[in-house]
């Protein structure tokens, strides 16, 4: 089976133990509200290797989005620290791409102009970045829609533009906050497969937040299971299914066992409306 590729990237061989890219130590967040302090996230320890795909799964209020925002440098931690490539994270970094549940496209810009927006902000817009944008749009299947406006695209296509916008500036890390949560089941499945293919080929580390257990297990090298009140990491599960992942693997006993394992951690009287 040949994996589709982006650029000249080769599918990542996960033989040698890769280096650490993100290191989270005792990271926590307490919000101070009028009614008193609320612990959104209790001290998290996590070491993520380069090229790893990590899913964060848990019900609302488990602090998974809070954790993602702190790793993104968008939210300051109240305890502990996180590093990216050995440097403390205390502000956003251009090595990190962030994707939201909605595509967050600018409706007055064409697909191509949206994808090139970060390059304008960085002051790096050039023929090279235009070429890169075209390559990436090709990879997400939107080459023919470069001059279309967002409102002419379906929800799934808009999220692909959003993905292309992020990939064009070649981040080392992709942070995704329920990126396909608003899409229908079929589109989401297709997007998930594409996402894995593209990030694997480019060797991008992915932190993927979801409340869908099946999706979390299917995508990840490791699933970080989180529980609420207070938000904390309740378990980390290794997913030792071969890559590239296929839909058929979802029928395997290993897969079913992993789902039960995640459910087991989430369970125990918690109202896990996942």
């Amino acid at each position, binding site marked *: 089976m040949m994996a589709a590729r982006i650029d000249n990237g080769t599918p990542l061989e996960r033989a040698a133990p890769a280096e650490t890219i993100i290191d989270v130590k005792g990271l926590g967040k307490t919000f101070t509200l009028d009614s008193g302090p609320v612990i959104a996230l209790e001290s998290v320890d996590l070491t993520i290797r380069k090229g790893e795909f990590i899913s964060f799964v848990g019900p609302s209020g488990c602090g998974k989005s809070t954790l993602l925002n702190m790793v993104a440098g968008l939210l300051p931690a109240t305890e502990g620290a996180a590093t990216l490539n050995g440097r403390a994270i205390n502000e956003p970094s251009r090595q990190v791409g962030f994707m939201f549940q909605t595509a967050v496209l600018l*409706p007055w810009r064409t697909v191509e102009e949206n994808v090139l927006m970060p390059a304008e*902000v960085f002051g790096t817009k050039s023929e090279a970045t235009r070429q890169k944008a075209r390559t990436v749009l090709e990879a997400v*299947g939107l080459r023919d*829609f470069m001059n*279309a406006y967002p409102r*002419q695209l379906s929800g799934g296509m808009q999220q692909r533009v959003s993905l292309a916008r992020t990939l064009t500036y070649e981040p080392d890390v992709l942070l995704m906050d329920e990126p396909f949560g608003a899409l229908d089941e079929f589109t989401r499945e297709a997007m998930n497969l594409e996402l894995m293919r593209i990030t694997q080929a480019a060797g991008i580390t992915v932190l993927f937040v979801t409340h869908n257990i099946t999706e979390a297990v299917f995508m990840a090298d490791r699933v970080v299971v989180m529980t609420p009140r207070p938000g904390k990491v309740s378990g980390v599960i290794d997913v030792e299914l071969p890559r590239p992942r296929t839909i058929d693997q979802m029928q395997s006993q290993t897969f079913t066992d992993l789902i039960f394992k995640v459910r087991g951690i989430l369970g125990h009287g918690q109202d896990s409306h996942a």
Partner: protein
Amino acid sequence: MAKTVTLDAEPVKAASPYKNANQELRYKLYTLAIIVVILAAWELAPRMGLVSPIILPSFSAVVGALISLMQQDFFLRHFSVTLTEILIGFVLGTSIGLALGIALAVWPTAKRIAYPFVVGFQAIPKIVFAPLFIAWFGFGMSSKVVMAVVISFFPVLINTLVGLESVPEDARKLMRSIKATPLQTFRKVSLPHALPVIFAGVKAALTFAVIGAIVGEFVGASEGLGYLVELYKNQLRIDRVFAVIVILAAIGAGGYFLLEWLDRKLIFWRTDAQGK
């Protein structure tokens, strides 16, 4: 083989505001029919003696008065005085509203301090300032321009503020995640996002500028279309009063449609859901 997953191959088309062209035509015919009925009633009521022609001159009499008025030598002077007052008042009012709106939106401290004044000012019926402005700025054009500015800047100010503050949180977050400067975020995201709302305020400002100039002329002036209305009313030449009203309506409508056209050119991405 590289597997390409092609979903959503067809772009979603924006739904037509009307079910079909046929229905659109029917609506236009209804509008036309209502206009015809109104004009017919206007023409017939004075002719049939239902109202005195001094109170309501017939439609044809007004058309006649309009034509004869526009042929008068003095007409162009009065017309251009009022038009100038409206235009200067509108441009200044819009600029001030825009500048203040942006200042309050990007500078939270300024908003906290100034907002009570803004709301308080809005509560005043600004027309009461007209006699004061005549006393301060004289019978000439400047007092009318000030009046037009004072009542027209407000919708622009409020709409600019509301528009800039309605930028979705995720869009701000996206800009922060790529370390955009506040100016970059403003220019690339906030301002274009707010533009449809700002433009609605600008359209209102034009109507208000017309009101400001005319009210100023009512209160004290020696030229202008508002002055003509006062003059002809005192002379009981109601047909000419109506003729001036028609001209003022034409100025307002002309400006509005010009802005409407500009709006559609400028804000081409507006969807039906966002309204007019």
